[in-house]
């Protein structure tokens, strides 16, 4: 009994994982290999060609998704790191207020927030319409339905998920360690490069994971801000599922996306050196 206790204690989480992760995944994996249609039903035929067909039809959208997700992640890093740094080191007694402000947009639904950007960026909306009226922008100027709008929307929507983990990592950096670097002849810049940045990398790593994956798979931003020429893989999966009722193709695409993301994460962890990252995180 004693020897079983630890296993019994983790049992609830295993059951949780089984019900909410393993079972649906297995179901989807099985669907992805079936053939048929929504009216006559689907039957398991082990048709692995579903994957090849889906990929050849939608490779453009898949690559575009990876590109947009990647661009948004880079933009989030460039914006998020300074923000996190500022809150962690300059926030003073108002730190928690700044963090609250960061989370405030979450009180409004994701879709609504994206739609409000649609209003803001509309060709003749409050912003561009006014500027065009004043003659500050050419008549043909538009942002909506461009790559920029979609990547911008993704950046805006997932930014807090980049900032928070970086903030947590920076918060844990002992200010005396930074002082020690300065005491040892490092300029402010060198102290940042040699000490603060390496110590905050685990946060950046976590931030990238938490933003790149959902941004790449996101269908909302492309649908609302992207027009017809910026369709991402998330939109395709959604359409295949909900409109075309083509479950096998949608499932195959979902799995392909997951595989690509997992490989991407693995390569990323390798390049960055998980060992170093984990080691720094475990201190």
């Amino acid at each position, binding site marked *: 009994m004693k020897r079983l206790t630890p296993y019994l204690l983790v049992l609830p989480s295993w059951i949780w994982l089984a019900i909410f992760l393993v079972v649906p995944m297995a179901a989807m994996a099985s669907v992805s290999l079936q053939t048929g249609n929504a009216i006559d039903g689907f039957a398991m035929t082990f048709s692995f060609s579903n994957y090849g067909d889906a990929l050849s039809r939608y490779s453009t959208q898949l690559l575009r998704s990876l590109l947009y997700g990647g661009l948004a992640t880079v933009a989030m890093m460039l914006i998020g790191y300074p923000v996190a740094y500022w809150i962690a080191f300059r926030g003073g007694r108002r730190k928690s207020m700044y963090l609250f402000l960061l989370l405030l947009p979450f009180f409004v639904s994701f879709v609504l927030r994206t739609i409000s950007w649609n209003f803001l960026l509309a060709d003749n909306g409050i912003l561009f319409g006014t500027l065009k009226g004043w003659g500050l922008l050419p008549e043909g100027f538009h942002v909506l339905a461009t790559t920029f709008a979609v990547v911008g929307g993704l950046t805006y929507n997932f930014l807090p998920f980049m900032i928070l983990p970086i903030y947590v990592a920076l918060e844990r950096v002992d200010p005396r360690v930074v*002082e*020690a670097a300065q*005491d*040892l002849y490092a*300029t402010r810049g060198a102290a940042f490069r040699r*000490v603060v940045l*390496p*110590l905050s990398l685990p946060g950046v790593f976590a931030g990238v994971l938490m933003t790149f994956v959902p941004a790449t798979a996101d269908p909302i931003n492309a649908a609302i801000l992207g027009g017809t020429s910026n369709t991402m893989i998330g939109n395709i999966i959604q359409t295949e599922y909900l409109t075309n009722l083509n479950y096998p193709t949608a499932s195959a695409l979902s799995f392909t996306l997951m595989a690509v993301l997992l490989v991407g994460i693995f390569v990323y962890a390798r390049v960055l050196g998980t060992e170093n990252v984990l080691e*720094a995180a475990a201190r």
Partner: protein
Amino acid sequence: MTGLNAIELEDVVKEYLSHGEVVQAVKGVTLDIAEGEFFSLLGPSGCGKTTTMRMIAGFEEPTKGLVKLHGQDVTNVPPNKRDVNMVFQSYALFPHMSVWDNVAFGLKQKKTPQDEIKRRVGEMLEIVDLTGREKRRPREMSGGQQQRVALARALVNRPRALLLDEPLGALDLKLRQAMQIELKRIQREVGITFVYVTHDQSEALTMSDRIAVMNDGLVEQLASPREIYERPATGFVAGFIGTSNLLTGTAVGGVLKVGDSRVLVPGHDGDVTVTVRPEKIAIGTEEPAPEMSVVRGTVTEVVYLGTYNSYAVRLSDSTDGTVITVFQQNAHDATATAERGDSVWLSWQARHSYVIGS
């Protein structure tokens, strides 16, 4: 003229703004620390000793006053351009770097040639007895080892002065005592000025050439350990360093007399405060010789402390119930001379009374 002082502070003041109020952490400190000296800043927490050290290191800028290193005004020079290094209270080692990289950090920043870095880091690790542990991470080491890494990381740069902020605070007693001896040895070996901040009086007495006792943002006394222990300048110093007994009263013709008690204070008249150390006092049941300072009292507590017995004696001739502490060495046997409730005579030689502020 004995050459330039390693460190000089001229009337240094540090003010903070705390909740809209100006707080003076350091209220005007003037110090000269000689080349090669082991100098301690001693005082209770909040006395301004750490702030004073941080101003020497360059982490704080004085509100008023000057900081000079080797005669050069460095008051507004940032820490990375000052030729002093610091050992931080919690060591502040770089957690993501190996021992070697920690120690080499300063030299790399100064763009020292590779082969010189290699040689000097190697030598320094030998001095602090960490050869063979170069690849370890700080977190994989014991407190004492981390302490030595911190020391090596600072000393390898051969600074003009080494600042140590309560460096032994996190260690247990045995290790702390070992490190005290170790620090003293290293200081002799490298011949660098050490400025040591501590609230532990025994640490300061053991290691220092001179001590500045600080209280409430001011230096109360600046002298050698012996001087500070034997001749405390103020009541605060007498109370802070070791255990001491304070007797106050009015002296007439060099004698402070209350009832049967007489405390000899040659050359003093009027209101005086006299201090006498517990180990200087003899305790007995018979009246001592007339040339001694003598007080009478009742034993209220006897504590056996291994190497000595500690007595608390309430003076019978004092109206305010002054209690005198007496230490008696267990030189012969451990039997106490007096028991609780016994009426005793306390006596000491006139030269062991010290009139505060004289």
